[in-house]
């Protein structure tokens, strides 16, 4: 059952009915879904969640959808993996990885889009659309296909091949825009004013963003109904980051957690696009937009819409914000793959590199329950690491040739 009540402006508190709108007409503040938490606390139990599907839709009652069928390609309920090898390397005894690479279109974006596509259909839209740095493009194209909606996906033209193909395969109208993500976003805002489309991250945004709460719910459930001590999150617009924390807080609020939420929330960004970390370091809540220049393209949002709220979440949770250099991103990707067998995209490398910074600074205690969010698959950003991998031995099909090559590469055959 749905416990939604209204949309409310996060800035001035004005309320609106549950329509496909995203901005307060008075102050331009973002609108957020408001729930009847008292009723939710009475109606939602651990038992019904546990009996639900093995997907994000086990938390359906905590999401802003109606009673009809949802647009579902089985997003969510991804593994929370004890990272013993990586933990040993870093001296952490309770390190976990939330592996969202294994979503249907290989990133956490399936969570938000599953909600957004469901709402688009509920509102009667015929067309699903988005502006994307790549992962959202794949998720929108996949869910648009499943929902039988016309789909338009707008991406910066210089995206990684894996993301272009990973979106195009589902048959959307894929529009490559000669410009940065921030420019694609501005264009799409203008298009959203002209066409009666469901732009998942524009007019459907209040609903869409709620899908990321499931990243908080799942981790808490998988830890035995506890919020972790640390959550390290790769951040672009700041939306997912704030919603993970909201997910923990909601579970606490409706009485489903065994502990109080005392989670230090950590923003991880690449230094080549770190407007939120910059503001944190300068101790201001005013974000100065930047022109992105980093290999972590999925995080290359120079003008983060939820940056202000991300900064507030860091403050409220006594968290931190860490920026890392591009070579550290590549090292982070390799370390994660070589220790835990997970091939994450650049954003995952950013999160692992940020974790290393926090460990080096003695911020994280050895016993602290620490969760790193790995939000997308490395197969989509192969360009970032291709040059740093090796050795690749090329041989003739003879034992002699093999042994020569191994010797040349300085390897000892076990």
């Amino acid at each position: 059952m749905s416990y939604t009540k209204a949309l409310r402006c996060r800035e001035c508190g004005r309320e609106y009915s549950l329509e496909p709108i995203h901005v307060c007409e008075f102050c331009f503040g973002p609108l957020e879904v408001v729930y009847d938490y008292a009723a939710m606390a009475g109606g939602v139990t651990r038992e019904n969640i546990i009996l639900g599907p093995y997907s994000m839709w086990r938390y359906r009652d905590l999401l802003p959808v109606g009673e009809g069928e949802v647009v579902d390609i089985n997003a969510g309920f991804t593994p929370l993996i004890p990272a013993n090898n990586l933990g040993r390397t870093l001296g952490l005894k309770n390190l976990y990885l939330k592996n969202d690479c294994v979503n249907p279109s290989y990133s956490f974006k399936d969570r938000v889009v599953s909600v957004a596509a469901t709402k688009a259909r509920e509102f009667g839209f015929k067309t699903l659309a988005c502006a994307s740095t790549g992962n959202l493009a794949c998720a929108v194209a996949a869910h648009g296909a499943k929902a039988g909606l016309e789909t338009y996906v707008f991406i910066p033209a210089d995206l990684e091949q894996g993301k272009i193909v990973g979106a195009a395969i589902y048959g959307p109208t894929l529009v490559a825009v000669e410009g940065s993500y921030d420019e694609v976003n501005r264009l799409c805002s203008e298009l959203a004013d002209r066409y009666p489309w469901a732009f998942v991250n524009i007019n459907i945004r209040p609903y869409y963003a709620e899908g990321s709460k499931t990243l908080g719910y799942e981790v808490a459930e998988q830890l035995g109904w506890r919020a972790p001590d640390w959550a390290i999150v790769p951040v672009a617009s700041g939306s997912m980051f704030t919603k993970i924390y909201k997910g923990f807080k909601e579970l606490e609020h409706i009485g489903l957690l065994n502990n109080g939420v005392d989670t230090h929330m950590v923003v991880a960004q690449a230094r080549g696009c770190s407007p939120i970390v910059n503001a944190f370091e300068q101790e201001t809540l005013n974000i100065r937009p930047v022109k992105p220049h980093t290999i972590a393209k999925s995080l290359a949002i120079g003008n983060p819409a939820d940056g202000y709220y991300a900064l507030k979440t860091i403050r409220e949770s006594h968290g931190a914000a860490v920026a890392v250099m591009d070579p550290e991103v590549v090292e982070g990707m390799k370390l994660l793959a070589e220790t835990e067998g997970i091939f994450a995209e650049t954003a995952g490398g950013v999160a692992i590199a940020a974790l290393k910074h926090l460990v080096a600074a003695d911020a994280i205690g050895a016993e602290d329950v620490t969760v790193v969010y790995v939000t997308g698959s490395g197969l989509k950003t192969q360009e970032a690491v291709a040059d740093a991998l090796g050795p690749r031995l090329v041989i003739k099909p003879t034992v002699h040739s093999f042994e020569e090559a191994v010797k040349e590469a300085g390897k000892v055959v076990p």
Partner: protein
Amino acid sequence: MVVKVRIPTPLRRLTNGREILEITAADLGQGIESMETQFPGLKERLCDEEGEIRRFVNIYVNGEDVRFLQGLATSLEAGDEVSIVPAVAGG
């Protein structure tokens, strides 16, 4: 200088539904004052009590965010296009 201003949906109630306004102004600040004269109430939607552009409002001149230019002092030339866009989530 006559410039075109693109008005986003949430503000069109104030502009009698008009999507494009033509204004005459030497810089963006003057442009906002000129729109306020024609359509009272517009300025307080765009600017906060200190007169600065609101946190969740993005204003572009010829596609460039004015925060990379001179903000409200950004000069306008004949034929320039100003676009007002609410912040949106992303990824």
